[in-house]
């Protein structure tokens, strides 16, 4: 059997893996999805990502690419078909990269801390910080979308994928702790964006259903950081 020229190592509940799947689908790239358990790493994973030992890993013609945002940029660089993922203007590109890094390094980790939090006080403080972050992201949305439905404009792009991949987990957290994060009164632009993004097939075909993520959320309460990035 021939080895597929594009392989993605990962597992579906990982938002980082979802990012790559969304990008590959946007470009209509056929790929082989190779299931990897980040908690029981295979020899194969350790061989293709010896540095970070994490999913996702994209393998294209035998060459491994790691780190979800770097993979998304690679997909945009390597395949010319389909819509461009990053904006064409260099300033808009820099802005998209900035906010994607903010989301990954500052904002979404708050959800992991929230899941691991053991006191009501700690939970309350983290929820407040999440909301503060959402206010910043609302401003970013207004700036980047320029009145259009998505961060990328008429179609989804890099920043939509960067933030959108987390929406499954955001919803699962909302259900698990009874807090509505994407509030149409506090952050109307983002709330509308999230509704639109989550109703796209790009999202629905890739991100697991909320109920499944809620079950996983419960399993991980108190456990700490996941093994993907």
């Amino acid at each position, binding site marked *: 059997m021939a080895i597929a020229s594009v392989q993605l190592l990962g597992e579906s509940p990982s938002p980082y893996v979802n990012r790559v799947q969304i990008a590959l689908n946007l470009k209509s790239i056929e790929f082989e999805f190779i299931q990897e358990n980040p908690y029981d790493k295979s020899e194969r994973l350790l061989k293709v990502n010896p*540095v*970070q030992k994490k999913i996702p890993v994209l393998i*294209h013609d035998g*060459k491994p*690419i*790691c*780190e979800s945002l*770097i*993979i998304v*940029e*690679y997909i945009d*660089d*390597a395949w010319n078909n389909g819509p461009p993922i990053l904006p064409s203007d*260099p*300033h808009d*590109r*820099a802005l998209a*990269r*900035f906010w994607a*890094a*903010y989301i990954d*390094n500052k904002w979404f980790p708050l959800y992991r801390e929230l899941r691991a939090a053991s006191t009501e006080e700690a939970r309350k403080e983290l929820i407040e910080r999440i909301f503060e972050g959402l206010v*910043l992201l609302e401003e970013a949305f207004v700036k980047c979308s320029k009145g259009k439905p998505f961060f990328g404009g008429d179609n989804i792009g890099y920043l939509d994928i960067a933030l959108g991949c987390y929406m499954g987990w955001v919803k699962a957290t909302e259900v698990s702790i009874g807090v509505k994060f994407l509030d149409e009164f506090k952050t109307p632009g983002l709330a509308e964006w999230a509704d639109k993004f989550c109703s796209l097939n790009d999202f629905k075909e890739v991100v697991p259903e909320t109920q499944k993520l809620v079950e996983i959320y419960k399993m991980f309460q108190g456990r700490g950081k996941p093994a993907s990035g």
Partner: protein
Amino acid sequence: MAPEKELVKLIGFWASPFVLSVRWALKLKGIEYEYQEENLLKKSPLLLQYNPVYKKVPVLLHNGKPLLESLFIIEYIDETWKHNPLLPQDPFERAKSRFWAKFAHEKCIGPMIKAFFKIGEEQEKCVKEACEHLKILESGLEEGKRFFGGETIGFVDIAVAWMGCWARIVEEVLNVKLIDEEKMPRLIAWFKNVVEVPMLKECMPPTQKLLEHNIRFRKLLVAAAERHQSSPLTGP
């Protein structure tokens, strides 16, 4: 060259290596720019206006539009001024460059900076983490190459190779060991190759001045840590 005058302004701090890496990019591209020195203890309204999220330098202003975070600024410079490319053309090599620059920043430089803000066991943990990751960075360098990508200076060189000088300062100020001469020969050679390029060397702040600045800075942090029994955390 653009027909209109390009207004380029860099808001920086003389002792910041992240500002240095942007200066290197601007220098390699031959871009003229105005420089504004920031007093980080009393940040200017301009800095707070253009970087409200992190309130940090460097900030590059190009025709009034702000660019933030050194790695993204360097990519912006490369995409806007296309001569003397810093990132490789090949998509896989580009991904590799981005990967290693990100790895160096998050896993080597991050813990080094954290160590500066910590004392005792917590500091030891940061130092250990930085060392382990420096060994991995060593493995990412290919044998026989003068710079990261080959014979020409590129993105990873300017984003990362200043780390050799700063690591030595951290070693001296904290009395710790980061760079292992025996286990990191490629890293040491690479750092040297980059910082000795004349147009990059002339941008470097004087080592003695940098050392004295960091000794003073560390003393302030230790005093604060001992008073409050905790240290402020920061990142690059």
